């Protein structure tokens, strides 16, 4: 009896192995090391995440180099696209921070295009999304958090601590309000990084599930998930753009809070 069940299991397993691939939508997010490196006890291996981050940076660099290879007063298509992105971020910085924001504009522009291209290279099939790792987005968010805090202390000195004291609140409530303000301030890097990471991971998981259905169904059923995967690819590009924009706009808000304090 048991041998019968075992052989049935074995035949089912071989059948499954030959007929249908195993559903594994998180396969996309596995990190493989190409070159193992370590320095001062830190793991600085060249993994697929690192390589695709280089690709993203190279794409951003190449795009701007190509767009401005021969700049004209009346821009061509590539130059118009690059100029639109540039002016879009400059307008955002002026709107959110004001005149003092000019100084931070290059950093914010770089941040936007880095996050945007990291999001967009993930749409290429069999590529890797660097921003789908919490460590990447977390590092960006923590750097932004510490920069904003240091900026606040550099601009206002110890007066910056009054940022955590809300205006027009009765003093009895301050005992409650100050910890809440402090916690909400400390939660900023967490929400900033988890938002980007979760959006990228969820979108690519949905794509992985759709591609799994495409390869596992027969020809008469496969075109439905395949069509949806085209739609979701477009949607994923849109989400990548929106999330890069959100990341940038929140960075502007945090810098503005440090400079102007409410």
């Amino acid at each position, binding site marked *: 009896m048991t041998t019968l069940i075992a052989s049935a299991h074995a035949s089912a397993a071989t059948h499954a192995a030959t007929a249908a691939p195993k559903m594994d939508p998180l396969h996309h997010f596995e990190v493989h090391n190409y070159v193992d490196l370590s320095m001062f006890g830190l793991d600085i291996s060249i993994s697929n995440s690192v390589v695709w981050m280089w690709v993203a940076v190279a794409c951003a660099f190449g795009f701007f180099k190509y767009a401005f290879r021969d700049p004209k007063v009346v821009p061509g298509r590539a130059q118009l696209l690059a100029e639109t992105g540039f002016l879009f971020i400059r307008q955002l910085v002026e709107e959110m921070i004001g005149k003092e924001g000019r100084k931070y504009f290059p950093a914010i522009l770089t941040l936007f295009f880095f996050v945007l291209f990291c999001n967009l290279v993930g749409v290429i099939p069999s590529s890797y999304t660097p921003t789908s790792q919490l460590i990447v987005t977390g590092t960006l968010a923590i750097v932004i958090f510490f920069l904003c805090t240091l900026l606040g202390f550099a601009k206002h000195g110890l007066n910056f601590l009054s940022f955590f004291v809300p205006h027009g609140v009765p003093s009895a409530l301050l005992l409650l309000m100050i910890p809440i303000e402090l916690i909400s301030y400390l939660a900023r890097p967490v929400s900033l990084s988890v938002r980007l990471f979760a959006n990228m991971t969820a979108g690519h998981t949905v794509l992985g599930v759709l591609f799994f259905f495409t390869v596992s169904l027969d020809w008469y059923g496969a075109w439905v998930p395949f069509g949806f995967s085209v739609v979701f690819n477009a949607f994923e590009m849109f989400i990548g753009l929106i999330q890069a924009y*959100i990341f940038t706009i929140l960075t502007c808000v945090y810098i503005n809070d440090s400079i102007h304090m409410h």
Partner: protein
Amino acid sequence: MESAAASLIGMGLSAIGFAGSGIGLGILFGKTIEAIARQPGAESQVSKYIWIGAAFVEAIALYGLVIAFIIMGNG
């Protein structure tokens, strides 16, 4: 074996959080359409903000997904 089943159930339960995001998206787009219907001239100004709002509301649902991943990693 039971703990594996419990972690699967927990991962499923974390999807309940999506309901809140659904309500949020409904309010967001409903109010936006209401605002545009009342004031069609303001459409370009209003629609500028809904995509930011939609991204924020969607992110709340995705925190549930993150919790599911955390459970999957521990279970």
